[in-house]
């Protein structure tokens, strides 16, 4: 009686039989549409961008010449203004990465070793919410509190520390007319925006430190400082490295923050934006956008030695 009851699923069942006999066909059908999308639209575009960086703008006619040349890269690397931009951006990315690491460590450490259950979930959400909330709103918030007559200035005034703020603003290079238009202010906003990207991988790697290991280290007579240096830090390094990939790469490519908060001095992202837009020099924009790829690749090679990819 079991055999007789089979609903009329003829076509579906035949297709299903086909997939059973030829699993490769199912794989092919599953993989082809998304991979076509990724391959053609995304990777294809990246490749096209790369091609453009080997084209150039004719100096006389201002027309784009579709001919292979290294001129654009030569312009990029030999113009002092351009190399300044690259150096400035890389330095900023390094500074932001360092600051994120310093601020993130106590948070991740506290979460990993001193929170449990609901408290842990609450802390987790407190880190996650800024990560997922609107990037633009957060950039705006940064500019808003750093404004000349804004919250930060007010606090400094209340604490009778206005002289300190003025001293920071008068510092050559770092300072500016106000925090909202200075490299220092930009640095604060970058750090504020990318901080969660450092906390999460760091937390993930600290969570993997077995509590028993720390106990064992203490039992063996290690002072807290020694336990930290010998036991916790080596295990946290991959997390720090993974987080730094995010903070470094994100700072390197950003063009909104330098535009909203900051000095007239350009950053790589802004150059890409301006060159393709108002300047209309797409080859130079493309060449500039190759710079982050190269720098990030170098950076990845460097941090791979620290085991960052295990913590991603």
């Amino acid at each position, binding site marked *: 009686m079991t055999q007789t009851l089979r609903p009329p*699923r003829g076509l*579906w069942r035949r*297709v*299903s039989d086909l*997939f*059973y006999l030829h699993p490769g066909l*199912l*794989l092919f059908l*599953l*993989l082809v*549409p*998304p991979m076509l*999308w990724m391959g053609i*639209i*995304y990777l*294809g*575009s*990246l490749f*096209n*961008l790369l091609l453009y960086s080997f084209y150039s703008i004719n100096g006389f006619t201002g027309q784009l010449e579709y001919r292979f040349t290294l001129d654009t890269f030569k312009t990029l690397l030999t113009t002092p203004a351009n190399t300044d931009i690259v150096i400035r951006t890389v330095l900023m990315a390094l500074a932001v990465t360092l600051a994120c690491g310093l601020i993130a460590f106590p*948070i991740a*450490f*506290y979460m990993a070793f001193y929170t449990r259950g609901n408290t842990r*979930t609450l*802390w987790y*959400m407190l*880190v996650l*919410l*800024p*990560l*997922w909330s*609107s*990037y*633009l*709103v957060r950039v705006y*918030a940064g500019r*808003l*509190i750093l*404004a*000349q007559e804004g*919250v930060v*200035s*007010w606090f400094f005034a209340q604490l009778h520390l206005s002289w300190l703020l003025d001293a920071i603003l008068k510092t050559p290079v770092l300072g500016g007319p106000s925090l909202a238009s200075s490299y220092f202010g930009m640095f604060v906003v970058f750090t504020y925006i990318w901080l*969660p990207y450092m906390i999460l991988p760091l937390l*993930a790697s600290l969570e993997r430190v077995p509590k028993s290991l*720390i106990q064992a280290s203490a039992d063996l007579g290690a002072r807290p400082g020694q336990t930290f240096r010998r036991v916790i830090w080596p295990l946290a390094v991959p997390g720090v490295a993974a987080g730094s990939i*995010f903070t470094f790469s*994100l700072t390197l*490519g*950003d*063009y*909104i923050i330098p535009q909203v908060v900051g000095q007239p001095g350009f950053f790589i*992202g802004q150059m*890409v*934006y301006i060159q393709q837009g108002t300047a209309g020099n*797409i080859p130079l924009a*493309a060449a500039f*956008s190759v710079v*982050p*790829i190269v720098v990030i690749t170098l950076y990845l090679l460097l941090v791979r030695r620290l085991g960052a990819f295990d913590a991603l």
Partner: protein
Amino acid sequence: MKAKPSLALRIAAIAGIAFLHFPLLIILLYAFTTEDRTYQFPPPGLTLKWFGVAFARQDMWAALGLSLRVALVATAVALVLGTMVAGAMYRFNFLGKDVVTLSLILPIALPGILTGIALLTTINRLGLEPSFWTIVIGHATFCMVTVYNNVVARFRRLTPSQIEASMDLGADGFQTFRYVILPGIATALLAGGMLAFALSFDEVIVTTFTAGQDKTLPIWFLSELFKPRERPVTNVVAIFVTAVTFVPILLAQRLTQSGEELHGGGKTT
């Protein structure tokens, strides 16, 4: 480890979290200020009028409408494509699996500006006009990665024997998908979809390049930042945007319970 953290550690941790949240509170406060040209602190007075002003702005509504439509379509595309890759990666071992993984990491590993300018140069080269669909294409690309991350994490928790048991009991591949696999990954799909939606709704870096003359809400917002008048309107919209993105994120967190799948989850700008 000691049972209680040192005071210094506790202060450092709390100060760090405060640093992450304080600016958003200030945004809220400034939505009520009576001063509309500077960011004077403390605000000279408080008023509710900016909410009315903001809601009367037609251009804001138009931008919001465009953003919602883009996010819906991009999320739908991403759900289908992302789930397909996740299924393939879960079910099969094949040559070139690493290449697929790499191509899915790239959109989050490389700065968003690269995706943006790459798409723009390609759009120009092909002689296309930036439009609704070019925005959607850009968004769907990184939303797909978010959906993929969520769904593939859930797939890994689905034991293969459940699928085998279903086939063993007489269900063909399609019935197994409908009755066993789909219920198993449903919440991950929902969570991934919501995160993708929030991501698309908020995206500005890629959109700047692919939008042409169209204004999504973030682009509208960005242009407002450089206007000297009616500044509190920007704050009202900022609160609104924050609320709209928070809801799906909190729901997604609920759906994945621990929220571990949300980790970064493809959220880079």
